[in-house]
Protein backbone atom coordinates (compact mmCIF):
# COMPACT_ATOMS: atom_id res chain seq x y z
CA UNK A 1 0.00 0.00 0.00
CA UNK A 2 1.63 3.20 -1.07
CA UNK A 3 0.72 6.78 -0.49
CA UNK A 4 0.78 8.59 -3.75
CA UNK A 5 -1.59 11.48 -3.24
CA UNK A 6 0.01 14.83 -4.03
CA UNK A 7 0.11 17.15 -1.04
CA UNK A 8 -2.22 20.14 -1.13
CA UNK A 9 -0.94 23.64 -1.65
CA UNK A 10 1.20 24.28 1.40
CA UNK A 11 0.56 27.46 3.34
CA UNK A 12 3.34 28.88 5.46
CA UNK A 13 3.50 27.71 9.02
CA UNK A 14 0.78 26.82 11.44
CA UNK A 15 1.73 29.51 13.89
CA UNK A 16 -0.28 32.15 12.13
CA UNK A 17 -3.49 30.14 12.42
CA UNK A 18 -2.82 29.35 16.04
CA UNK A 19 -2.28 32.98 16.89
CA UNK A 20 -5.59 33.83 15.34
CA UNK A 21 -7.44 31.56 17.80
CA UNK A 22 -9.10 33.24 20.75
CA UNK A 23 -7.88 32.42 24.22
CA UNK A 24 -11.11 30.75 25.17
CA UNK A 25 -11.01 28.50 22.17
CA UNK A 26 -7.44 27.51 22.90
CA UNK A 27 -8.43 26.72 26.44
CA UNK A 28 -11.30 24.58 25.25
CA UNK A 29 -9.00 22.79 22.87
CA UNK A 30 -6.55 21.93 25.58
CA UNK A 31 -9.29 20.35 27.62
CA UNK A 32 -10.95 18.47 24.80
CA UNK A 33 -7.98 17.86 22.59
CA UNK A 34 -6.94 19.48 19.37
CA UNK A 35 -9.68 17.86 17.37
CA UNK A 36 -12.66 17.53 19.67
CA UNK A 37 -14.70 16.34 16.74
CA UNK A 38 -12.93 13.08 17.41
CA UNK A 39 -15.30 12.63 20.32
CA UNK A 40 -18.22 12.79 17.94
CA UNK A 41 -16.56 10.39 15.52
CA UNK A 42 -15.87 7.94 18.24
CA UNK A 43 -19.20 8.38 20.02
CA UNK A 44 -21.21 5.71 18.17
CA UNK A 45 -18.48 3.15 18.75
CA UNK A 46 -18.27 4.17 22.37
CA UNK A 47 -22.01 3.85 22.73
CA UNK A 48 -21.88 0.45 21.11
CA UNK A 49 -19.20 -0.73 23.51
CA UNK A 50 -20.98 0.72 26.51
CA UNK A 51 -24.35 -0.80 25.75
CA UNK A 52 -23.43 -4.09 24.16
CA UNK A 53 -20.21 -4.92 25.89
CA UNK A 54 -19.55 -3.06 29.12
CA UNK A 55 -23.08 -3.35 30.49
CA UNK A 56 -23.42 -7.09 29.75
CA UNK A 57 -19.97 -7.63 31.22
CA UNK A 58 -21.06 -5.84 34.36
CA UNK A 59 -24.27 -7.85 34.43
CA UNK A 60 -22.27 -11.06 34.07
CA UNK A 61 -20.16 -10.11 37.07
CA UNK A 62 -23.32 -9.25 38.99
CA UNK A 63 -24.94 -12.56 38.11
CA UNK A 64 -21.89 -14.48 39.20
CA UNK A 65 -22.07 -12.97 42.67
CA UNK A 66 -25.78 -13.52 43.28
CA UNK A 67 -28.26 -16.38 43.22
CA UNK A 68 -29.70 -15.62 39.78
CA UNK A 69 -32.07 -17.37 37.44
CA UNK A 70 -34.18 -16.17 34.57
CA UNK A 71 -37.79 -15.32 35.15
CA UNK A 72 -40.66 -14.27 32.96
CA UNK A 73 -40.90 -10.51 32.41
CA UNK A 74 -42.47 -8.74 35.34
CA UNK A 75 -41.84 -11.57 37.77
CA UNK A 76 -39.70 -10.45 40.67
CA UNK A 77 -37.78 -12.95 42.74
CA UNK A 78 -35.21 -12.44 45.45
CA UNK A 79 -31.67 -12.42 44.08
CA UNK A 80 -29.54 -12.62 47.22
CA UNK A 81 -25.86 -11.90 47.28
CA UNK A 82 -23.94 -15.14 47.63
CA UNK A 83 -20.40 -13.94 47.41
CA UNK A 84 -18.08 -16.44 45.85
CA UNK A 85 -20.25 -19.51 46.29
CA UNK A 86 -20.90 -19.75 42.54
CA UNK A 87 -17.17 -19.73 41.92
CA UNK A 88 -16.85 -22.41 44.56
CA UNK A 89 -19.46 -24.52 42.80
CA UNK A 90 -17.65 -24.10 39.49
CA UNK A 91 -14.30 -25.19 40.88
CA UNK A 92 -15.73 -28.22 42.62
CA UNK A 93 -17.81 -29.45 39.70
CA UNK A 94 -16.17 -32.55 38.17
CA UNK A 95 -17.79 -31.89 34.81
CA UNK A 96 -16.14 -28.47 34.69
CA UNK A 97 -12.79 -29.96 35.62
CA UNK A 98 -13.22 -32.49 32.83
CA UNK A 99 -13.98 -29.64 30.44
CA UNK A 100 -10.80 -27.78 31.35
CA UNK A 101 -8.88 -31.02 31.01
CA UNK A 102 -10.39 -31.40 27.56
CA UNK A 103 -9.19 -27.92 26.64
CA UNK A 104 -5.72 -28.89 27.80
CA UNK A 105 -5.76 -31.96 25.58
CA UNK A 106 -6.93 -29.74 22.76
CA UNK A 107 -4.13 -27.24 23.28
CA UNK A 108 -1.44 -29.90 23.55
CA UNK A 109 -2.42 -31.15 20.12
CA UNK A 110 -3.43 -27.92 18.46
CA UNK A 111 -0.73 -25.42 19.42
CA UNK A 112 2.49 -27.25 18.47
CA UNK A 113 0.87 -28.60 15.33
CA UNK A 114 -0.39 -25.17 14.34
CA UNK A 115 2.93 -23.45 14.93
CA UNK A 116 5.00 -26.09 13.18
CA UNK A 117 2.80 -26.70 10.15
CA UNK A 118 1.91 -23.08 9.48
CA UNK A 119 5.53 -21.99 9.79
CA UNK A 120 6.69 -24.75 7.44
CA UNK A 121 3.99 -24.02 4.89
CA UNK A 122 4.63 -20.29 5.12
CA UNK A 123 8.32 -20.86 4.54
CA UNK A 124 7.53 -23.01 1.54
CA UNK A 125 5.12 -20.41 0.23
CA UNK A 126 7.61 -17.62 0.73
CA UNK A 127 9.49 -18.23 -2.48
CA UNK A 128 9.14 -17.59 -6.15
CA UNK A 129 7.07 -20.60 -7.01
CA UNK A 130 4.38 -20.97 -9.61
CA UNK A 131 0.68 -20.95 -8.69
CA UNK A 132 1.17 -18.93 -5.53
CA UNK A 133 -2.33 -17.58 -5.78
CA UNK A 134 -3.75 -21.08 -5.99
CA UNK A 135 -1.91 -22.22 -2.89
CA UNK A 136 -2.88 -19.13 -0.94
CA UNK A 137 -6.52 -19.62 -1.83
CA UNK A 138 -6.50 -23.28 -0.92
CA UNK A 139 -4.97 -22.63 2.50
CA UNK A 140 -7.47 -19.89 3.20
CA UNK A 141 -10.53 -21.80 2.05
CA UNK A 142 -11.11 -23.74 5.28
CA UNK A 143 -10.55 -20.61 7.38
CA UNK A 144 -13.19 -18.49 5.69
CA UNK A 145 -15.82 -21.21 5.48
CA UNK A 146 -18.43 -21.53 8.19
CA UNK A 147 -17.58 -24.13 10.77
CA UNK A 148 -21.13 -25.44 10.44
CA UNK A 149 -20.51 -26.22 6.80
CA UNK A 150 -17.19 -27.97 7.34
CA UNK A 151 -18.59 -29.88 10.29
CA UNK A 152 -21.08 -31.48 7.94
CA UNK A 153 -18.24 -32.97 5.90
CA UNK A 154 -16.28 -34.08 8.93
CA UNK A 155 -19.31 -35.74 10.46
CA UNK A 156 -19.52 -37.64 7.21
CA UNK A 157 -15.83 -38.51 7.13
CA UNK A 158 -15.60 -39.48 10.79
CA UNK A 159 -18.86 -41.37 11.09
CA UNK A 160 -18.70 -45.06 12.09
CA UNK A 161 -19.01 -46.04 8.43
CA UNK A 162 -17.23 -42.98 7.12
CA UNK A 163 -14.25 -42.94 4.86
CA UNK A 164 -11.76 -42.45 7.69
CA UNK A 165 -12.79 -45.72 9.27
CA UNK A 166 -13.19 -47.50 5.95
CA UNK A 167 -9.71 -46.61 4.79
CA UNK A 168 -8.10 -47.60 8.07
CA UNK A 169 -10.02 -50.85 8.15
CA UNK A 170 -9.06 -52.90 11.21
CA UNK A 171 -6.91 -50.07 12.55
CA UNK A 172 -9.88 -47.76 12.90
CA UNK A 173 -10.88 -47.08 16.50
CA UNK A 174 -14.00 -48.78 17.78
CA UNK A 175 -16.23 -47.02 18.77
CA UNK A 176 -15.62 -44.56 16.00
CA UNK A 177 -13.79 -41.28 16.33
CA UNK A 178 -16.37 -38.86 17.58
CA UNK A 179 -18.06 -41.21 20.00
CA UNK A 180 -14.83 -42.69 21.26
CA UNK A 181 -13.82 -41.37 24.66
CA UNK A 182 -10.15 -41.26 23.73
CA UNK A 183 -10.56 -39.92 20.24
CA UNK A 184 -13.37 -37.38 20.58
CA UNK A 185 -11.31 -34.41 21.74
CA UNK A 186 -8.29 -35.22 19.54
CA UNK A 187 -10.64 -35.40 16.55
CA UNK A 188 -11.96 -31.96 17.38
CA UNK A 189 -8.41 -30.70 17.89
CA UNK A 190 -7.29 -31.98 14.50
CA UNK A 191 -10.35 -30.48 12.82
CA UNK A 192 -9.87 -27.05 14.40
CA UNK A 193 -6.15 -27.11 13.60
CA UNK A 194 -6.88 -27.92 9.97
CA UNK A 195 -9.48 -25.20 9.77
CA UNK A 196 -7.41 -22.41 11.30
CA UNK A 197 -4.07 -22.97 9.58
CA UNK A 198 -4.77 -20.56 6.73
CA UNK A 199 -4.91 -17.55 8.97
CA UNK A 200 -1.69 -18.45 10.80
CA UNK A 201 0.10 -19.07 7.51
CA UNK A 202 -0.75 -15.53 6.54
CA UNK A 203 0.61 -14.22 9.81
CA UNK A 204 3.85 -16.11 9.33
CA UNK A 205 4.13 -14.97 5.73
CA UNK A 206 3.96 -11.41 6.93
CA UNK A 207 6.60 -12.09 9.54
CA UNK A 208 8.89 -13.79 7.08
CA UNK A 209 9.03 -10.57 5.08
CA UNK A 210 10.73 -9.03 8.05
CA UNK A 211 13.55 -11.53 8.31
CA UNK A 212 16.57 -9.93 6.61
CA UNK A 213 17.72 -11.89 3.57
CA UNK A 214 21.32 -11.30 4.51
CA UNK A 215 20.95 -13.67 7.42
CA UNK A 216 19.97 -16.47 5.06
CA UNK A 217 22.81 -15.60 2.74
CA UNK A 218 25.28 -15.66 5.59
CA UNK A 219 24.03 -18.99 6.86
CA UNK A 220 24.08 -20.46 3.36
CA UNK A 221 27.65 -19.32 2.88
CA UNK A 222 28.57 -21.00 6.12
CA UNK A 223 27.30 -24.18 4.55
CA UNK A 224 24.18 -24.58 6.64
CA UNK A 225 21.59 -26.98 5.29
CA UNK A 226 17.95 -26.00 4.75
CA UNK A 227 16.95 -27.44 8.09
CA UNK A 228 19.70 -25.61 9.95
CA UNK A 229 18.79 -22.39 8.23
CA UNK A 230 15.23 -22.88 9.35
CA UNK A 231 16.18 -23.45 12.95
CA UNK A 232 18.85 -20.82 13.30
CA UNK A 233 17.48 -17.99 11.16
CA UNK A 234 13.78 -18.39 10.56
CA UNK A 235 12.53 -19.56 13.92
CA UNK A 236 14.26 -16.88 15.98
CA UNK A 237 13.37 -14.32 13.36
CA UNK A 238 9.63 -14.84 13.70
CA UNK A 239 9.61 -15.28 17.44
CA UNK A 240 7.19 -12.45 18.03
CA UNK A 241 4.65 -13.88 15.66
CA UNK A 242 5.08 -17.30 17.21
CA UNK A 243 4.02 -15.88 20.54
CA UNK A 244 1.09 -14.17 18.83
CA UNK A 245 0.09 -17.40 17.11
CA UNK A 246 0.34 -19.28 20.37
CA UNK A 247 -1.80 -16.73 22.15
CA UNK A 248 -4.45 -16.73 19.43
CA UNK A 249 -4.49 -20.53 19.43
CA UNK A 250 -4.95 -20.59 23.18
CA UNK A 251 -7.80 -18.09 22.98
CA UNK A 252 -9.45 -20.17 20.28
CA UNK A 253 -9.08 -23.31 22.34
CA UNK A 254 -10.48 -21.68 25.43
CA UNK A 255 -13.51 -20.45 23.50
CA UNK A 256 -14.44 -23.66 21.67
CA UNK A 257 -18.18 -24.00 21.32
CA UNK A 258 -19.49 -24.80 17.86
CA UNK A 259 -17.30 -27.85 17.34
CA UNK A 260 -18.12 -29.72 20.57
CA UNK A 261 -21.76 -28.71 20.21
CA UNK A 262 -22.19 -30.01 16.68
CA UNK A 263 -19.48 -32.60 16.17
CA UNK A 264 -19.98 -34.46 19.40
CA UNK A 265 -23.54 -33.53 20.22
CA UNK A 266 -23.07 -31.44 23.31
CA UNK A 267 -20.37 -32.89 25.51
CA UNK A 268 -19.44 -36.07 23.75
CA UNK A 269 -19.05 -39.56 25.14
CA UNK A 270 -19.14 -39.29 28.90
CA UNK A 271 -18.36 -35.59 28.75
CA UNK A 272 -15.00 -36.22 27.16
CA UNK A 273 -15.29 -33.49 24.58
CA UNK A 274 -17.18 -30.86 26.50
CA UNK A 275 -15.66 -27.40 26.53
CA UNK A 276 -16.06 -24.70 29.18
CA UNK A 277 -18.01 -22.45 26.83
CA UNK A 278 -20.30 -25.32 25.96
CA UNK A 279 -20.95 -25.68 29.65
CA UNK A 280 -21.62 -21.98 29.96
CA UNK A 281 -24.28 -22.42 27.33
CA UNK A 282 -25.69 -25.58 28.88
CA UNK A 283 -25.84 -24.33 32.44
CA UNK A 284 -26.80 -20.79 31.54
CA UNK A 285 -29.38 -21.26 28.84
CA UNK A 286 -30.45 -24.88 28.86
CA UNK A 287 -30.56 -25.34 32.61
CA UNK A 288 -31.35 -21.79 33.67
CA UNK A 289 -28.37 -21.30 36.01
CA UNK A 290 -26.85 -18.12 34.62
CA UNK A 291 -25.15 -17.43 37.95
CA UNK A 292 -23.06 -20.58 37.64
CA UNK A 293 -22.50 -19.94 33.95
CA UNK A 294 -21.34 -16.36 34.50
CA UNK A 295 -18.90 -17.45 37.19
CA UNK A 296 -17.48 -20.03 34.82
CA UNK A 297 -17.24 -17.44 32.06
CA UNK A 298 -15.40 -14.95 34.22
CA UNK A 299 -12.97 -17.61 35.38
CA UNK A 300 -12.34 -18.37 31.71
CA UNK A 301 -11.71 -14.72 30.86
CA UNK A 302 -9.35 -14.26 33.80
CA UNK A 303 -7.48 -17.36 32.67
CA UNK A 304 -7.09 -16.02 29.15
CA UNK A 305 -6.03 -12.59 30.40
CA UNK A 306 -3.45 -14.25 32.64
CA UNK A 307 -2.01 -16.16 29.72
CA UNK A 308 -1.97 -13.00 27.62
CA UNK A 309 -0.23 -11.19 30.44
CA UNK A 310 2.38 -13.90 30.75
CA UNK A 311 2.90 -13.76 27.02
CA UNK A 312 3.47 -9.99 27.22
CA UNK A 313 6.02 -10.49 29.97
CA UNK A 314 7.85 -13.17 28.05
CA UNK A 315 7.83 -10.99 24.95
CA UNK A 316 9.18 -8.03 26.87
CA UNK A 317 11.96 -10.19 28.29
CA UNK A 318 12.91 -11.42 24.87
CA UNK A 319 12.91 -8.03 23.19
Amino acid sequence: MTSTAAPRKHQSGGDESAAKESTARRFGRAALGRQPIGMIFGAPYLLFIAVLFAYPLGLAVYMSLHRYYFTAPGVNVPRPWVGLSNYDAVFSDPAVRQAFLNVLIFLVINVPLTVAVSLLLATALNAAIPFRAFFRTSFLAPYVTASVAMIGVFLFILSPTGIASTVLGPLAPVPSWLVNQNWAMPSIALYVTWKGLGFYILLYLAALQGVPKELYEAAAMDGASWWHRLLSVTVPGVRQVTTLVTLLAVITGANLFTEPYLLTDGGGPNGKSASPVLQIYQTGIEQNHPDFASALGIILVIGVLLIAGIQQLVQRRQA
Partner: protein
Amino acid sequence: MTKADRATPEVTARSDSVTAALEPRASRSWWRLIALLFGALVFLFPFYYMVIGSLQKTQNTSLSGVLPNPGNMTLHNYGEINVAIGLGKAIINSGIFTGGVLLVTLVFGILAGYALARLSFRGRGLLFALMMLVLTVPFQLLIIPLYVLIARNYGLANSYLGMIAPFAINSTAVLIFRQYFMQLPAELFDAARIDGASELKVLIHIALPLVRPAVLTAMLLTFIGPWNEFLWPFLITKEQGLQPLAVAMANYIDNVAATASNPYGAILAGSCVLAAPAVALIIGFQRYFVSTNIGSGVKG
Protein backbone atom coordinates in the same frame (compact mmCIF):
# COMPACT_ATOMS: atom_id res chain seq x y z
CA MET B 1 5.06 -2.41 13.10
CA THR B 2 8.31 -2.66 11.25
CA LYS B 3 9.20 -1.01 8.03
CA ALA B 4 9.06 -4.37 6.39
CA ASP B 5 5.31 -4.43 6.77
CA ARG B 6 5.01 -1.64 4.33
CA ALA B 7 6.96 -3.63 1.78
CA THR B 8 5.45 -3.45 -1.64
CA PRO B 9 5.01 -6.56 -3.76
CA GLU B 10 7.95 -5.53 -5.91
CA VAL B 11 10.30 -5.59 -2.95
CA THR B 12 9.04 -8.99 -1.91
CA ALA B 13 9.58 -10.44 -5.34
CA ARG B 14 13.12 -9.08 -5.44
CA SER B 15 14.07 -10.71 -2.16
CA ASP B 16 12.51 -13.97 -3.28
CA SER B 17 14.72 -14.15 -6.29
CA VAL B 18 17.78 -13.49 -4.14
CA THR B 19 16.84 -16.33 -1.84
CA ALA B 20 16.11 -18.61 -4.71
CA ALA B 21 19.46 -17.84 -6.29
CA LEU B 22 21.30 -19.05 -3.22
CA GLU B 23 19.91 -22.55 -3.26
CA PRO B 24 20.44 -25.48 -5.57
CA ARG B 25 17.58 -24.36 -7.71
CA ALA B 26 16.26 -27.64 -9.00
CA SER B 27 15.82 -29.82 -5.92
CA ARG B 28 14.85 -26.96 -3.58
CA SER B 29 11.89 -25.77 -5.57
CA TRP B 30 10.69 -29.29 -6.28
CA TRP B 31 10.53 -30.18 -2.59
CA ARG B 32 8.77 -26.93 -1.93
CA LEU B 33 6.19 -27.60 -4.60
CA ILE B 34 5.57 -31.12 -3.40
CA ALA B 35 5.11 -29.98 0.16
CA LEU B 36 2.75 -27.24 -0.93
CA LEU B 37 0.81 -29.54 -3.20
CA PHE B 38 0.40 -32.01 -0.41
CA GLY B 39 -0.76 -29.20 1.85
CA ALA B 40 -3.21 -27.96 -0.75
CA LEU B 41 -4.56 -31.47 -1.14
CA VAL B 42 -5.16 -31.81 2.58
CA PHE B 43 -6.90 -28.46 2.66
CA LEU B 44 -9.04 -28.94 -0.40
CA PHE B 45 -9.99 -32.59 -0.09
CA PRO B 46 -12.87 -32.02 2.35
CA PHE B 47 -14.35 -29.44 -0.03
CA TYR B 48 -14.11 -31.83 -2.92
CA TYR B 49 -15.60 -34.61 -0.83
CA MET B 50 -18.36 -32.27 0.27
CA VAL B 51 -19.42 -31.69 -3.31
CA ILE B 52 -19.14 -35.35 -4.25
CA GLY B 53 -21.05 -36.46 -1.17
CA SER B 54 -23.83 -33.98 -1.77
CA LEU B 55 -24.43 -35.43 -5.20
CA GLN B 56 -24.62 -39.06 -4.14
CA LYS B 57 -27.94 -40.80 -4.43
CA THR B 58 -27.11 -43.47 -1.91
CA GLN B 59 -24.42 -42.93 0.63
CA ASN B 60 -21.12 -44.43 -0.45
CA THR B 61 -18.43 -44.14 2.19
CA SER B 62 -15.88 -46.49 0.71
CA LEU B 63 -12.72 -45.32 -0.96
CA SER B 64 -14.34 -45.72 -4.36
CA GLY B 65 -17.00 -43.25 -3.26
CA VAL B 66 -14.39 -40.54 -3.42
CA LEU B 67 -14.45 -40.63 -7.17
CA PRO B 68 -17.54 -39.29 -8.89
CA ASN B 69 -19.81 -42.09 -9.98
CA PRO B 70 -22.23 -40.95 -12.68
CA GLY B 71 -24.55 -43.81 -11.85
CA ASN B 72 -24.96 -42.59 -8.27
CA MET B 73 -25.49 -38.93 -8.90
CA THR B 74 -28.52 -36.84 -8.20
CA LEU B 75 -29.54 -33.34 -7.23
CA HIS B 76 -32.22 -34.79 -4.97
CA ASN B 77 -30.30 -33.99 -1.80
CA TYR B 78 -30.38 -30.30 -2.58
CA GLY B 79 -34.10 -30.51 -3.11
CA GLU B 80 -34.57 -32.42 0.12
CA ILE B 81 -32.77 -29.96 2.32
CA ASN B 82 -34.44 -27.09 0.53
CA VAL B 83 -37.81 -28.48 1.49
CA ALA B 84 -36.74 -28.91 5.10
CA ILE B 85 -35.04 -25.56 5.64
CA GLY B 86 -35.89 -23.27 2.77
CA LEU B 87 -32.38 -22.53 1.54
CA GLY B 88 -33.39 -19.38 -0.27
CA LYS B 89 -34.94 -17.68 2.73
CA ALA B 90 -32.08 -18.78 4.97
CA ILE B 91 -29.51 -17.29 2.61
CA ILE B 92 -31.46 -14.05 2.46
CA ASN B 93 -31.49 -13.95 6.25
CA SER B 94 -27.75 -14.54 6.33
CA GLY B 95 -27.38 -11.78 3.79
CA ILE B 96 -29.41 -9.29 5.78
CA PHE B 97 -27.55 -10.15 8.97
CA THR B 98 -24.12 -9.89 7.35
CA GLY B 99 -25.04 -6.86 5.28
CA GLY B 100 -26.29 -5.02 8.33
CA VAL B 101 -23.06 -5.66 10.19
CA LEU B 102 -20.97 -4.62 7.19
CA LEU B 103 -22.91 -1.39 6.81
CA VAL B 104 -22.68 -0.36 10.46
CA THR B 105 -19.02 -1.32 10.70
CA LEU B 106 -18.23 0.53 7.50
CA VAL B 107 -19.83 3.76 8.66
CA PHE B 108 -19.11 3.88 12.37
CA GLY B 109 -15.99 1.72 12.37
CA ILE B 110 -14.17 3.94 9.91
CA LEU B 111 -15.13 7.00 11.91
CA ALA B 112 -13.85 5.43 15.11
CA GLY B 113 -10.69 4.10 13.48
CA TYR B 114 -9.92 7.47 11.99
CA ALA B 115 -10.54 9.23 15.26
CA LEU B 116 -8.27 6.84 17.10
CA ALA B 117 -5.56 7.21 14.50
CA ARG B 118 -5.43 10.81 13.56
CA LEU B 119 -7.49 12.89 15.93
CA SER B 120 -6.37 14.02 19.29
CA PHE B 121 -9.29 14.31 21.68
CA ARG B 122 -10.22 13.73 25.22
CA GLY B 123 -11.02 10.09 25.88
CA ARG B 124 -8.96 8.71 23.01
CA GLY B 125 -6.88 6.55 25.32
CA LEU B 126 -9.99 5.22 26.99
CA LEU B 127 -11.59 4.31 23.69
CA PHE B 128 -8.45 2.51 22.57
CA ALA B 129 -8.21 0.56 25.80
CA LEU B 130 -11.87 -0.41 25.54
CA MET B 131 -11.33 -1.60 21.98
CA MET B 132 -8.45 -3.84 23.08
CA LEU B 133 -10.58 -5.17 25.92
CA VAL B 134 -13.37 -6.05 23.51
CA LEU B 135 -10.90 -7.98 21.40
CA THR B 136 -9.69 -9.96 24.39
CA VAL B 137 -12.92 -10.90 26.11
CA PRO B 138 -14.63 -13.90 24.51
CA PHE B 139 -18.09 -13.25 23.18
CA GLN B 140 -19.48 -16.36 24.86
CA LEU B 141 -19.10 -14.86 28.30
CA LEU B 142 -21.50 -12.16 27.33
CA ILE B 143 -24.12 -14.15 25.50
CA ILE B 144 -26.20 -14.71 28.58
CA PRO B 145 -26.48 -11.12 29.78
CA LEU B 146 -26.75 -10.02 26.15
CA TYR B 147 -29.65 -12.39 25.65
CA VAL B 148 -31.46 -10.92 28.61
CA LEU B 149 -30.66 -7.40 27.48
CA ILE B 150 -31.58 -7.76 23.85
CA ALA B 151 -34.43 -10.24 24.08
CA ARG B 152 -36.17 -8.95 27.13
CA ASN B 153 -35.15 -5.38 27.89
CA TYR B 154 -35.08 -4.22 24.29
CA GLY B 155 -37.68 -6.67 23.04
CA LEU B 156 -35.59 -7.53 20.01
CA ALA B 157 -35.93 -11.31 20.06
CA ASN B 158 -36.74 -12.82 16.66
CA SER B 159 -35.63 -9.76 14.74
CA TYR B 160 -32.82 -8.83 12.41
CA LEU B 161 -31.86 -5.93 14.66
CA GLY B 162 -31.46 -8.31 17.56
CA MET B 163 -29.19 -10.50 15.47
CA ILE B 164 -27.05 -7.62 14.28
CA ALA B 165 -26.72 -5.70 17.53
CA PRO B 166 -23.83 -7.48 19.30
CA PHE B 167 -21.84 -7.63 16.07
CA ALA B 168 -22.74 -4.21 14.80
CA ILE B 169 -19.23 -2.73 14.90
CA ASN B 170 -16.45 -5.22 14.38
CA SER B 171 -13.55 -4.24 16.63
CA THR B 172 -10.96 -6.05 14.54
CA ALA B 173 -12.03 -3.91 11.61
CA VAL B 174 -11.67 -0.79 13.75
CA LEU B 175 -8.18 -1.91 14.66
CA ILE B 176 -7.30 -2.43 11.02
CA PHE B 177 -8.69 0.96 10.06
CA ARG B 178 -6.70 2.56 12.83
CA GLN B 179 -3.48 0.87 11.76
CA TYR B 180 -3.83 1.98 8.19
CA PHE B 181 -4.85 5.51 8.94
CA MET B 182 -1.83 5.72 11.20
CA GLN B 183 0.43 4.74 8.35
CA LEU B 184 -0.53 7.77 6.27
CA PRO B 185 1.99 10.60 6.46
CA ALA B 186 1.15 13.31 8.96
CA GLU B 187 1.96 16.09 6.53
CA LEU B 188 -1.07 15.15 4.51
CA PHE B 189 -3.36 15.95 7.34
CA ASP B 190 -1.52 18.99 8.57
CA ALA B 191 -1.72 20.48 5.12
CA ALA B 192 -5.41 19.78 4.82
CA ARG B 193 -6.19 21.16 8.25
CA ILE B 194 -4.27 24.30 7.58
CA ASP B 195 -6.31 24.70 4.45
CA GLY B 196 -9.30 24.79 6.77
CA ALA B 197 -10.94 21.57 5.71
CA SER B 198 -13.27 19.99 8.27
CA GLU B 199 -12.22 16.64 9.64
CA LEU B 200 -15.05 14.86 7.94
CA LYS B 201 -14.02 16.23 4.60
CA VAL B 202 -10.43 15.22 5.26
CA LEU B 203 -11.57 11.73 6.12
CA ILE B 204 -13.83 11.25 3.15
CA HIS B 205 -11.89 12.99 0.42
CA ILE B 206 -8.28 12.48 1.43
CA ALA B 207 -7.73 9.62 3.86
CA LEU B 208 -10.33 7.14 2.71
CA PRO B 209 -9.26 6.86 -0.92
CA LEU B 210 -5.74 6.09 0.23
CA VAL B 211 -6.70 3.16 2.43
CA ARG B 212 -9.13 1.49 0.06
CA PRO B 213 -7.31 -1.85 0.06
CA ALA B 214 -7.38 -1.89 3.83
CA VAL B 215 -11.09 -1.10 3.82
CA LEU B 216 -11.63 -4.02 1.49
CA THR B 217 -9.59 -6.33 3.67
CA ALA B 218 -11.41 -5.22 6.78
CA MET B 219 -14.77 -5.69 5.07
CA LEU B 220 -13.79 -9.20 4.02
CA LEU B 221 -12.77 -10.06 7.56
CA THR B 222 -15.99 -8.52 8.86
CA PHE B 223 -17.99 -10.57 6.36
CA ILE B 224 -16.64 -13.87 7.64
CA GLY B 225 -17.88 -13.28 11.18
CA PRO B 226 -21.66 -12.86 10.80
CA TRP B 227 -21.93 -15.08 7.73
CA ASN B 228 -20.53 -18.00 9.65
CA GLU B 229 -21.86 -17.11 13.08
CA PHE B 230 -23.97 -19.77 14.65
CA LEU B 231 -24.47 -19.33 18.37
CA TRP B 232 -25.94 -15.87 18.65
CA PRO B 233 -28.56 -16.02 15.90
CA PHE B 234 -29.42 -19.50 17.15
CA LEU B 235 -30.16 -18.05 20.54
CA ILE B 236 -31.99 -14.93 19.53
CA THR B 237 -34.18 -16.20 16.69
CA LYS B 238 -36.35 -19.20 17.29
CA GLU B 239 -38.61 -18.43 14.37
CA GLN B 240 -37.59 -20.64 11.49
CA GLY B 241 -38.36 -18.01 8.90
CA LEU B 242 -35.76 -15.66 10.34
CA GLN B 243 -32.88 -17.99 10.89
CA PRO B 244 -29.68 -17.51 8.90
CA LEU B 245 -28.31 -20.44 6.98
CA ALA B 246 -25.69 -21.44 9.54
CA VAL B 247 -28.36 -21.83 12.22
CA ALA B 248 -30.83 -23.59 9.92
CA MET B 249 -28.06 -26.01 8.94
CA ALA B 250 -27.16 -26.73 12.54
CA ASN B 251 -30.79 -27.41 13.44
CA TYR B 252 -31.10 -29.67 10.45
CA ILE B 253 -28.02 -31.66 11.40
CA ASP B 254 -29.23 -32.00 14.96
CA ASN B 255 -32.88 -32.78 14.52
CA VAL B 256 -34.15 -33.53 11.08
CA ALA B 257 -31.37 -35.14 9.10
CA ALA B 258 -32.08 -38.62 10.37
CA THR B 259 -35.40 -38.65 8.55
CA ALA B 260 -33.98 -37.89 5.11
CA SER B 261 -33.42 -40.64 2.58
CA ASN B 262 -29.70 -39.89 2.39
CA PRO B 263 -29.08 -37.92 5.61
CA TYR B 264 -25.44 -37.11 4.98
CA GLY B 265 -26.16 -36.24 1.38
CA ALA B 266 -28.68 -33.64 2.45
CA ILE B 267 -26.33 -32.24 5.11
CA LEU B 268 -23.52 -31.96 2.60
CA ALA B 269 -25.81 -30.25 0.12
CA GLY B 270 -26.57 -27.62 2.74
CA SER B 271 -22.88 -27.33 3.58
CA CYS B 272 -22.04 -26.66 -0.06
CA VAL B 273 -24.57 -23.90 -0.22
CA LEU B 274 -23.29 -22.38 3.00
CA ALA B 275 -19.64 -22.60 1.99
CA ALA B 276 -19.99 -21.39 -1.59
CA PRO B 277 -20.21 -17.61 -1.06
CA ALA B 278 -17.24 -17.46 1.31
CA VAL B 279 -15.07 -19.54 -1.00
CA ALA B 280 -16.18 -17.51 -4.02
CA LEU B 281 -15.23 -14.34 -2.20
CA ILE B 282 -11.71 -15.40 -1.42
CA ILE B 283 -11.16 -16.69 -4.92
CA GLY B 284 -12.28 -13.36 -6.26
CA PHE B 285 -10.55 -11.15 -3.75
CA GLN B 286 -7.64 -13.30 -2.65
CA ARG B 287 -5.01 -10.77 -3.62
CA TYR B 288 -6.38 -8.47 -0.93
CA PHE B 289 -5.68 -11.12 1.64
CA VAL B 290 -2.01 -10.47 0.98
CA SER B 291 -0.07 -11.26 4.11
CA THR B 292 1.15 -7.74 4.74
CA ASN B 293 -2.33 -6.35 5.18
CA ILE B 294 -3.54 -8.85 7.70
CA GLY B 295 -0.31 -9.41 9.53
CA SER B 296 0.25 -5.78 10.33
CA GLY B 297 -3.38 -5.24 11.14
CA VAL B 298 -3.29 -7.83 13.88
CA LYS B 299 0.22 -7.38 15.22
CA GLY B 300 -0.04 -3.65 15.82
